[in-house]
């Protein structure tokens, strides 16, 4: 399946990294992540004061799945999707913005941040990231897969799962 993905590389990466850090500073949120629709983390930033985060792998998977489920619910009612996805617990909340068809921007905040400020800063960051992506000039390099690639991969698979039996 040709799943759309973001090319976050070189100067685009640096630019988006700066936007995420600015988002954290403006909103006083703990973490900001860009994840794809398969649930993989593409980039993340963490406020200096923020506590150690939970596993971002698990978090990203759950956010992407939750987003997909919410979208399916919206479709049942003839909507393309829901305009806002906010979740608030007693201490921690998340706010999500779409980054086109390719990815999601999610901000994790706690009671020290105001929801309104988080929303505005996240929307602003999402706009800035879209602009940065549109003006990206540097394409990621083509990846080379030589004979060593398969050999190295097989050796690692042997190490993890045992020798291949055919």
């Amino acid at each position: 399946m040709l799943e759309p993905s973001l090319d976050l590389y070189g100067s685009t990466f640096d630019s988006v990294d700066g936007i995420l850090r600015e988002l954290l500073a403006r909103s006083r949120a703990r973490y900001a992540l860009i994840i794809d629709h398969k649930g993989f983390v593409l980039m993340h930033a963490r406020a200096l004061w923020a506590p150690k985060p939970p596993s971002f792998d698990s978090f990203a998977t759950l956010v992407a799945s939750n987003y997909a489920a919410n979208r399916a619910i919206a479709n049942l009612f003839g909507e393309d999707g829901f305009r806002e996805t906010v979740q608030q617990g007693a201490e921690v909340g998340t706010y999500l913005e779409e980054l086109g068809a390719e990815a999601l921007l999610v901000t994790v905040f706690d009671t020290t941040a105001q929801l309104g400020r988080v929303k505005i800063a996240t929307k602003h960051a999402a706009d800035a990231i879209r602009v940065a992506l549109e003006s990206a000039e540097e394409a990621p390099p083509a990846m080379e897969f030589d004979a060593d690639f398969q050999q190295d991969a097989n050796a690692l698979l042997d190490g993890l799962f045992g020798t291949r039996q055919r």
Partner: protein
Amino acid sequence: MSTINFSAREINFKIVYYGPGLSGKTTNLKQIYQQVPAESKGEMVSLATEDERTLFFDFLPLDLGKVNGFKTRFHLYTVPGQVFYNSSRKLILRGVDGVVFVADSDPARLRANAESLRNLRENLQEYNMRISDVPLVIQANKRDLPEALDLSMLKAVLDPQGKVPVYEAVAANFEGVFEPLRGVATMVLEKLAQRA
């Protein structure tokens, strides 16, 4: 299609365990979680009902190590097998790179196996994917059942053309759990190498 993250130097693959209800998909993931060393795995997440039936999915990230300087990871998912959870199954298949089809060797479940495979084919079509384009292996699970179906019968129903690797397993005893995962992992890596 695999996700290549150049900035983080990561290659990520999504492997989905598919099959009829109670065929042993979650058991596979639990066994993998128990057997893989701590440094090669992340947290296992299960979204299940109170009676431990999969409601949405189970998830387990595995870290293979560095290939060509890229950290290579597999995200393993199960789907809920029960017929009425098809919406969830469809969502989980998004962006799939490889499938382990867990078939139940119980003769009473032969029809359920066939229906689940047909359902896999239909759900992949929703993403404009053909089942023949997706790296696929079949795990014939519960081979320890006294009345277990002949393997030839399972193959005749699920893969009459004999194109798909089939592995026998008793997942609950950790027999034949790694082999199909290794098989599908090899296939997705070969596919990535061919694409480049």
